[in-house]
């Protein structure tokens, strides 16, 4: 899967906006999008929020976790723990990128938020690499990692699965081959 696909899946998450137009309830296949009244907050999927924001028809309200103190707490907790801490949203990286690119004027201290999220990302990736290395080194058959997000899995996925494939083939070399198929002539 590519990062763009992960971003596409992330756009289904709900975010609060304050529209500046009015419209009745819209019935879409995925669900209803509630009636829009100017000045009243309403929850919509991110894809719609970004679109409306680009057309200057709404104002975005950042999600509760996108706040400097909260993110500092999350980052410090991530650094303390050896395992992965649960993230406020399974798509935190994608949402950060989308919201900060398109709606940075609605989000206070956007640059600090970007830095904090990047720090958390770096810590998690380092933990992921450490655990991948110990997994390979001890030749375990099974590993369980909680609280990983899709984007992190994507970035390291291809590399790790290929390396494990190679290791598996090299391991089957250790067993002496049972059936020697040779043609005598």
């Amino acid at each position: 899967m590519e990062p763009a696909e992960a971003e596409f899946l992330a756009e289904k998450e709900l975010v609060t906006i304050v529209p500046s137009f009015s419209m009745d309830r819209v019935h879409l296949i995925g669900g209803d999008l509630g009636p829009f009244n100017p000045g009243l907050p309403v929850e919509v999927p991110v894809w719609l929020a970004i679109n409306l924001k680009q057309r200057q028809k709404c104002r975005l309200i950042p999600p509760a976790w996108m706040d400097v103190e909260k993110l500092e707490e999350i980052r410090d907790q991530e650094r303390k723990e050896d395992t992965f801490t649960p993230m406020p949203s399974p798509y935190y990286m994608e949402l950060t990128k989308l919201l900060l690119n398109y709606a940075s004027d609605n989000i206070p201290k956007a640059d600090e938020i970007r830095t904090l999220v990047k720090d958390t990302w770096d810590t998690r990736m380092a933990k992921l690499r450490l655990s991948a290395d110990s997994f390979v080194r001890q030749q375990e058959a099974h590993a369980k990692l909680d609280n990983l997000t899709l984007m992190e899995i994507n970035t390291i996925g291809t590399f790790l699965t290929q390396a494990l494939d190679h290791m598996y083939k090299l391991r089957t070399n250790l067993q002496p081959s049972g059936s020697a198929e040779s043609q005598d002539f």
Partner: protein
Amino acid sequence: MAEAYFPVGPGLGPEENFLSLDDILMSQEKLPGRAESNLPRLAFALGQGSGAGSGDSIPEGSKLEIPMWLAKGLHDSKRRLISVELPKIYKEAWRTVFSADANVVDLHKMGPYYYGFGSQLLNFDNPENPEIAQCILQTFINRFRRIMDSSQNAYNEDTSSLVARLDELERALFQAGQKGLNDFQCWEKGQASQITVSSLVQNYGKRKFTEMDG
């Protein structure tokens, strides 16, 4: 970007992949060996042209350098045509070097197909086979960390110094790691939604119509 061309990877077990280019190149690597019986009229083929009589037979017991594909074909425990020895990097001395620290070895110089060639060597009955197999596996495991770290952290840099000491299998892994990193960075910069030229087509220069005549 989604790949349009998937090359066939090398088979790492006792059998190689017939269609894999890596395996074809790997089996061209030479092994030291000896002729166990007289091989008439094969002197020119096995590179002994300047030896005893041009184009004549190879006497019994003479030392040869045989490519792997030929060694596998001629190897037979009943009709002893040739016997093979292990190349020096699979021998005891180098095995201890690998077990001490696998990261310092320049695997590209030691035959760019260390893992593939080593796996093929297990085909020949040799009392040291289990140790060789174990050594190859341990080398891979020990070098894995460095490949992972270097491939996932070198963005937009010249990586030639990082890959110089890796063999072909490790280089392919390095590419995979780089690709993951590059895709992520490119997405983060917002370039993932820009339309770019496919890598397969990028090298087609514009050919003028007049060039195609005659």
